């Protein structure tokens, strides 16, 4: 376990929070987080950093990252991430993305395929698949979402989310410092994913441009993204394989860091 250090990175939209640690590997590994804004203190990243240089930028609106006012849609998100790669001098990197981060990784890889050496998409959103809708994440009771995000109801975040329901009638009872980051993260997610709902209608047709060998990971207990999405990614990306993860749900990298690290390192090489 190699810890990551927190840095600030200046970008065109403002200063963003970046976590960086480890060294080595065939290319720097960039982790793109989900709508949960995971990254700081994440076990998966610390395991990967044992053998790899790991970089985890927080998207505008998450953590202390500024600049959400300059992001209106997924197009802006892609260009912001290109800017991040440029400012980190990452000519070519490995991308690992979870859910929203998986979508953003794919948007980078279709536009600038030469910047991506290999890629892992875990439970990615980003596509519209008829008959297989992505579960609503906005405006839901945290306790309901907890069951869809986590396989183990006793996982600490799942327990916390269930506890939040008690404050539904009077949210003023929750310390606002706990609420603020959640509100900001949700606003950031809404900016890129409210409508079209968590997808870009153009993405599927562009996936043929991805040159990076890509691993799609689908968690069998994912209550947010149906497996059909992973299947479309697999068939549309020229060099892609699909792996299922047992006993894991949408936030598999949080709940099953060891297994996900193994899959990632097997695919990317260490």
């Amino acid at each position, binding site marked *: 376990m190699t810890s990551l250090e927190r840095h600030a990175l200046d970008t065109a939209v403002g200063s963003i929070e970046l976590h960086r640690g480890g060294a080595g590997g065939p290319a720097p590994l960039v982790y793109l987080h989900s709508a949960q804004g995971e990254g700081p203190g994440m076990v998966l990243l610390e395991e990967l950093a044992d053998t790899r240089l790991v970089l985890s930028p927080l998207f505008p609106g998450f953590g202390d990252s500024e600049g959400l006012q300059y992001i209106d849609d997924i197009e802006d998100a892609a260009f912001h991430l290109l800017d991040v790669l440029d400012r980190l001098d990452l000519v070519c990197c490995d991308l690992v993305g979870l859910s929203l981060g998986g979508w953003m990784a794919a948007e980078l890889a279709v536009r600038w395929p030469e910047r991506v050496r290999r890629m892992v998409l875990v439970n990615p959103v980003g596509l519209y698949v008829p008959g297989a809708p992505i579960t609503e994440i906005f405006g839901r009771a945290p306790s309901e979402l907890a069951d869809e995000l986590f396989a183990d109801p006793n996982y600490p975040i799942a327990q916390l989310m269930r506890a939040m329901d008690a404050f539904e*009638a009077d949210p003023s*009872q929750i310390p*606002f410092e706990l609420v603020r980051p959640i509100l*900001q993260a949700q606003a950031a997610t809404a*900016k890129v994913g409210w*409508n079209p709902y968590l997808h870009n209608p153009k993405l599927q047709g562009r996936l043929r441009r991805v040159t990076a060998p890509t691993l799609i990971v689908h968690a069998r207990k994912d209550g947010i993204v149906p497996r059909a999405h992973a299947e479309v990614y697999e068939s549309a990306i020229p060099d892609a394989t699909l792996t299922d993860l047992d006993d894991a749900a949408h936030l598999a990298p949080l709940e099953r860091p060891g297994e996900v690290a193994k899959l990632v390192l097997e695919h990317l090489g260490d």
Partner: protein
Amino acid sequence: MRFFSFHLMPYPDLPPDYDGPAWITCPNELFDPRLGGELYNRYIDELVYAEELGFDGVCVNEHHQNAYGIMPSPNLIASILARLTSRVRIAVVGNALPLYDPPTRVAEEFAMIDCISGGRLIAGMVVGGGPEYYSFSLNPAHARERFAEAHDLILKVWTEPGPFEFTGKHYKLRYVNSWPRPIQQPHPEIWIPGVGSLETLEFVAKHRYAYMGIPYFHISVFERMFAMLREACQKEGYEADPLQLGWLVPIFVAETDAEARRRYEEHFWYFVRRLLPGINISPPGYTSVRSVENIMKNAGTFALNLDSWDEVVRGQYAIVGSPETVREQLAANIERLGVGNLLGLFQLGTLPAADTRHSLELFASEVMPKLRASFPGGDTSGASVPTPAAAPS
């Protein structure tokens, strides 16, 4: 003091076994179109009756896909009122600007209503309720900037000669040239309803518009909200005029206090327990973080949390009683809040037509004249141009 009769046009017939939200996903199979037709006509009659009784104005508003208020197009109702009335101000409170694309539609329809009514429109502009952003799949994270841009566009339509080109972030229009233009110059009076978002208060203060406090909170919430508005006006370098402040509150008058509560209470609870659930959903990015912090302080006093009639009375969630009780409580609150516009919700929830009319009559004959004497002032001049008489029916 100006007196308005405000109608939400609620749906009073949700089945007893339906316990879901009244908003967004409330199944529209529950809407009976024939009953809907009767309700629209009855509710329009109740608004027209307010003119006969001497009110200064009537108010309608916009909500979508819900049982709380079945008035997705307040402009349709306002245009009917423009024709059926001849004196009252017609306040559309308001059009949810971000829902109109392009928002020149609002400038056009409001100008039509102003023309038809002979210059009696009050043009309300609103960001739209949280549920609307689900019902329209409209990005709530863009709500405030779309509202601001749409507002600027509409004002420009009314005050600058067309055709002109408008190139904003959300609206890009090459030929803006509204026919008709409003009778009221430079434009109709503008009202902005709100629940205490700081951006809205600052916006109202900056433009010297009027702010309408939305009900269903403890009276102390209104007090804080209006104090914040006064402060915002002072920051703009002026003192707020009472006519810039409006208080919207359910009112019911009967012969005695006991009779009033007996006739009213069940209808109030239908409204609170059946029609409010779902109204308070706040989609992501809809309100700035600093405003959420401010609004959340009030969340515990939201009417959905009411348990007893005592709490209703203590918090002044509704003003219910004999003419003397209602007058006394309204006078105390008007004084306390410093408002120059009273917006009464005289029909609420399942309250039947006969009770609504009786309450309106008692209010108009025994409460309103005394309040007018206590709180003089306010523009009651009505139409700037007489409305042509309606064709005989």
